């Protein structure tokens, strides 16, 4: 080799360039440039195919849910609405509907509490003058989100259980407490721990878009703090509140661990019952039907606030014109 071919003394860099030259040569051999307009679609294809596994799975749920199931032979039966009937009609329907009802009521309560607590927290993060406090709050909020459902549940088990923090604190004040495991309150508190941070993080961008001068103007003109919140902040944060409501609700209605452990299994949610249908009855058909019912409910719950926002915009537009 001539010296002129190796102007760069660093061998690693030279190797790096060779590899890149190789890739370029390979690309021109494969004529990737010819793909032209098809290229972005080819880049998307693997992701679309992967997600389609879930799409196909959901369609398959639908197919299974409209079949009968022979519990004795464990075989697929003929086409029928038997599974859905079992979910709503006596004798078993009462249990399933009560479960659905409990799931929805507790989820709505948790969501309401999360929005009510998340809004002031988001407001604090946006408006606080101290950068350190803001970062600290954000870090604390994000940790429960990443540590996983089961660890959060375990943590509350230690706090609320009969030999836990709660019982100990009660004994300090001279009370005897066996813990509150098995009550709706325990499940509620456990679910709030992850819902509030999620709500706060989702409300954050909406609050950040509110001009602080608007609050100042309102209070200069004599509005009480509660009036500033009710008439200025909440109406302006409205899109964030709607989005947070939808996402938090969606997360909560699929809750599994908290009812199973903190509710001691006495207050099963839909997810627990679906799990039991599979493990105890081996009935994929009934499980499919119940999963789809939950999916239908959650989809309409997500779409509701979106439709509401769209409707308000449409109204505002109609008024203007």
């Amino acid at each position, binding site marked *: 080799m001539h010296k002129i071919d190796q102007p760069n003394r660093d061998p690693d860099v030279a190797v790096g360039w060779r590899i890149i030259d190789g890739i370029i040569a390979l690309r021109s051999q494969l004529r990737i440039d010819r793909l032209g307009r098809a290229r972005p679609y080819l880049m*998307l294809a693997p992701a679309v195919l992967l997600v389609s596994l879930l799409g196909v799975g959901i369609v398959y749920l639908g197919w299974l849910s409209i079949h009968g199931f022979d519990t004795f032979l464990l075989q697929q039966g003929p086409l029928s609405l038997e599974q859905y009937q079992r979910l709503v009609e006596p004798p078993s329907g009462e249990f399933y509907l009560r479960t659905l009802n409990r799931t929805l009521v507790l989820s709505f309560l948790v969501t309401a509490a999360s929005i009510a607590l998340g809004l002031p927290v988001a407001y604090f993060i946006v408006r606080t003058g101290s950068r350190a406090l803001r970062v600290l709050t954000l870090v604390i909020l994000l*940790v429960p989100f990443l540590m996983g459902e089961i660890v959060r549940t375990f943590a509350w088990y230690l706090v609320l259980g009969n030999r836990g923090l709660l019982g100990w604190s009660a004994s300090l004040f001279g009370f005897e407490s066996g813990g509150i495991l098995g009550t709706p309150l325990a499940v509620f508190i456990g679910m709030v721990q992850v819902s509030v941070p999620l709500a706060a993080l989702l409300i954050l961008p909406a609050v950040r878009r509110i001009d602080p001068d608007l609050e100042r103007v309102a209070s200069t003109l004599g509005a009480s703090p509660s009036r500033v919140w009710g008439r200025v902040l909440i109406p302006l944060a409205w899109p964030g509140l709607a989005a947070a409501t939808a996402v938090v609700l969606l997360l909560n209605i699929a809750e599994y661990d908290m009812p199973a452990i903190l509710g001691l299994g006495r207050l099963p949610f839909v997810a627990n019952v679906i799990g039991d249908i599979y493990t105890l009855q081996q009935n994929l058909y009934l499980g499919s039907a119940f999963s789809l019912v939950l999916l239908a409910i959650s989809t309409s719950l997500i779409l509701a606030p979106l439709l509401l926002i769209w409707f308000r915009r449409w109204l505002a537009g109609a008024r203007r014109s």
Partner: protein
Amino acid sequence: MGRVVRASLALVVAIVAVPLLIVVIASVSGGERLTFPPESLSLDPYRALLGNEEIRSALGRSLIVGFEVVVISLIVGVPATIALVRYRIRFRTGIALYMILGVATPLIASAFAFLVLSTRAGVLGLLWPISVGVAIVNLPFLMFSVASSLASLDPRLEEAAATLGAEQVQTFLFVTLPGIMPGILSGTIMVFVLGISEFVISLLLSTVSIQTLPIAMFASLRGPPPPEIAAAAGLYVLAALMVVLTLTSLRSTEQFFYRSD
């Protein structure tokens, strides 16, 4: 700042942080049973964790799932995000909405869909279907992260590189990739932690022989929890804390949380 705001902030911080502290305390407590306050302080739970063959192999399986989820999400998610953000494509909104299908479906319904598919395909009882399912459900987190990095990378930089004679490969390797690296890294880390702590999909898809760590922990919570479970939970809390600190230091915290809007 009003009194109500301060009071709600204090309440939220207490609800979020107290259980974390309790887990960490429990993970370094001595004695046969977990009680509060602990009988003594010791590293016995962590020793028990290392000594418990079942829990240790469950931990190994969870790490494998986390790793597989990262590989799948990166291979599939990064090109797709670049295509969605940088190219003119038809049905962009529709495709973007389709990508979040896994997040928009209640987790138990997705898990059941994966269960019926795996049963049908005869792959129930293997580890990789769990990884695929978890990757699908968490793909949006990686894509959001990469997309926000990509959105803040000026496309004129890439054009300048191309104008100055860089091949497309070089432009990608030396301009685009370094530019979106923070997004890829934070997305990867997030998807990994979500993968190792995933519960509901593993619950339906795992059999006794392939229990992941969260499933093993769940099973042991039916009775009084043994100390090694506290150690495992302590590890998860520490991992989550480290991840959050890494995420927030990769880009300035405000940038990470606020995104570009």
